């Protein structure tokens, strides 16, 4: 029932979910960075993600490698089609990494302000671009024969993808502020707690807007629901997860709030994948003829099987040391001589 092609579609979904949950909070922290006042607060912010952001980004790198290996045609079409957008994303990720590393290396105020700005901007731009990419995938892009993109850069900036981009940004801000609530203490924690109400409120508005817009603009999104009605249960769980965020913050249970927002992200990505399936890239020119699916865009069965073995061999290690690292750096952020 689940063949190798579907297996890889699911595994890519898992990698993307891992990425969105983990890098989601540190992109969120970055997008909130300029709201922190003074050098001490900013360093706390930076160091809350200090030991983990790099490992979080590896989920994206592995997602890219796995997409290349499992569905090379989709990899080629998406990345060449989104050329400028991806270049912009790469510049954002470069700047972000370097800003984190270099910001605290000098005490000069100009130096730190420059990197603070770069860190903020790069984080926010990356978050928006991820959302825009997802929005475009949902709505379909002009893919023609041979899997070649036939549109222009501006075809990617339609209202729906931009809305999804904005939603992604506020979702990550919410996720990041909850993470900060976990990692800070005292006055700063109180301050961050107030932010959660704000970010959650804005997220809720965008979440509802995006849901409505999806049903109107992308009718194919619910095509698979007729075949698998049980997925409606997941929609309900998604709503419950969203609703649980304010409840757990109100009750003072930040851990539960964080799990809830992680579940929200996971559910949204599941729904995204479910809406897409069996397509990887939907063609807006002729969805039947030119769309790249998990079958026509895939590598050979042999490669998919080899990669499955690599994944089965590697993933337990990955999960084990990801857990170990988060365990070593558990607890509230404190600045030491080794901090950023």
């Amino acid at each position, binding site marked *: 029932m689940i063949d190798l092609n579907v297996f890889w579609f699911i595994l890519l979904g898992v990698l993307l979910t891992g990425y969105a949950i983990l890098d989601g909070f540190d992109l969120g922290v970055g997008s909130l960075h300029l709201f922190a*006042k*003074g*050098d*001490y607060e900013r360093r706390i912010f930076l160091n809350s993600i200090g*030991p983990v952001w*790099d*490992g979080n*980004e*590896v989920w*994206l*790198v*592995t997602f*890219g*490698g*796995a997409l*290349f*290996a499992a569905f*090379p*045609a989709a*990899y*080629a079409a998406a*990345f*060449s089609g*989104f*050329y*400028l957008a991806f*270049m912009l994303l*790469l*510049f954002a*990720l*470069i700047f972000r*990494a*370097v800003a*984190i*590393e*270099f910001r605290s*290396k*000098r005490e000069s*105020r100009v130096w730190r302000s420059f990197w603070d700005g770069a860190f903020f901007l790069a984080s926010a731009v990356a978050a928006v671009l991820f959302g825009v990419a997802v929005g475009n995938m949902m709505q379909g892009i002009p893919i023609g024969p*041979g*899997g070649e993109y*036939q549109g222009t850069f501006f075809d990617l900036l339609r209202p729906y993808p931009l809305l999804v981009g904005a939603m992604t940004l506020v979702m990550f801000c919410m996720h990041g502020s909850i993470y900060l609530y976990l990692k800070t203490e005292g006055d700063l924690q109180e301050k961050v707690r107030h932010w959660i109400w704000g970010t959650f409120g804005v997220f809720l508005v965008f979440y509802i807007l995006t849901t409505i817009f999806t049903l109107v603009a992308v009718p194919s999104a619910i095509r698979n629901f007729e075949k698998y009605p049980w997925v409606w249960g997941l929609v309900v769980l998604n709503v419950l997860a969203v609703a649980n965020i304010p409840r757990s913050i109100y009750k003072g249970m930040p851990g539960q709030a964080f799990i809830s927002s992680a579940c929200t992200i996971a559910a949204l990505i599941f729904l995204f994948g479910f809406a897409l399936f069996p397509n990887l890239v939907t063609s807006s020119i002729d969805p039947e003829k030119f769309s790249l699916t998990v079958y026509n865009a895939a*590598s*050979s069965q042999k*490669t998919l099987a*080899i*990669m499955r073995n*690599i994944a089965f061999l*590697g993933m337990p*290690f*990955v999960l084990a*040391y*990801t857990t170990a690292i988060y365990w*070593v*750096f558990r607890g509230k952020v*404190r*600045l*030491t*001589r*080794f901090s950023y």
Partner: protein
Amino acid sequence: MDFDPLLLSRIQFALTVAFHYLFPPLTIGLGVIMVFTEWQYLRTKDMQYEVMAKFWTRIFAINFALGVASGIVMEFQFGTNWATYSRFVGDVFGSALAAEGIFAFFLESGFLAVLVFGWDRVSPRVHFLSTVLVSLGSMFSAIWIVVANSWQQTPAGFRLVEHQGALRAEITDFWAVVFNPSSMIRLSHVLIGAFILGAFVVMSITAYYILRGRHMEMAKKSFAIALAVALVSSMAQLVTGHYHAVKVAKHQPAKLAAFEGHFETGEGGAPLHIIGLPDQKEKTVRYSVAIPGLLSWLVHMDSSKPVKGLDQFPEEDWPPVALSFVSYHVMVGLGLYFILLTVVGAVMYKRGTLFQTRWLLWVFVVSVIGPYISNQLGWMAAEVGRQPWIVYGLLRTTEAYSQSVPGGQVATSIGMFVLIYLLLAAVWIYVMNDKIQHGPDEADATGIVAKEGLAGIREAILKGEEGSLTATAEEEEEGSQR
């Protein structure tokens, strides 16, 4: 204006790879030295080793960050600029990239955190273990990248299949792909090249300290370790370099002929051009100083056997000869220089005169540029020599680029890359210089940490900030009053 997307994509790839490849060799090489240093610390409990380990970790972290930041470009560039290539090789090449992610990147990035931030959080043993894992991770990553690259040079373990109206390479034998004819010899050559670079960086920095009379004890200890690594690696590199060239002669004869400027196959033994400048039009090597028969001897162990020259191949299959020749020859020349310098250094060290010989220390300070250049040229020779093929004998570079990306967009992205890389290079030099001038922290020895405790450190940091960042500190007070 008309932009040629193929040419621009090639320029962009060369530019981004060259920039990226400034960093991984250092992290690989320095990683080995850090492992050795920390092991010495565990063994002897000599605080100096801990001071050293902490200092090198800082240098490591800066370069690692830039390696990660610039490396992410590499992975996505296959899709953005080389879509046709990606469709052709995805079945083979992609699994190596995915394996790199799963087996190497998670390991490196995860444990790097313990390396940099974990000194007070884990025991010295666990910290040492993390250093070992990070070092292993950086090498695993090299393994998969070199395997993927080598497959492009000497493809094996695949068949060509028509898929969706286009040809592509599909795996038939995974292990034949991994152990393709050139992967293991290339891997050893690349890793040793990285060890040499790491060792020369350490020697350059510590020679500078010795010359300035700073951090003497730590500097001398580090220098000695690095000198040993550099000596052994330089010698070993001569061996791997030789066998690598023999492999190239066997599997990519046109490439070797271009490296050596060998135009005519000839009857008897082939000469080796020690220096010269090939002229592709005239099919001759100008200003040549050559040793008769030596090339034949190196390739066949027989100075009278002919070596295949470029005349055996149609001219449209020739790599750019001058560029291949020069990059290859300068690399080899630098390799010989490393042997000479480290042997001299080792002899003087044995005699106990090295650290008093100021001119030689200065030579070590500036020689750091050598391995940077030779590492770059090694890749350049390998990649240029493979032309005009992107996958040797199977797919031409001219056929491999993204058809749907307009040249203007590639030009835009190159412009942005140039700007960003210039900025990053400037920042990198500035911060590296800053770290080197600041030097190792003698207070890094954990004895002091234990005495003052973490609370003391936090106070010290806050105090330091008030002093130097008065304005910010004031803001902070305002903030808390509000």
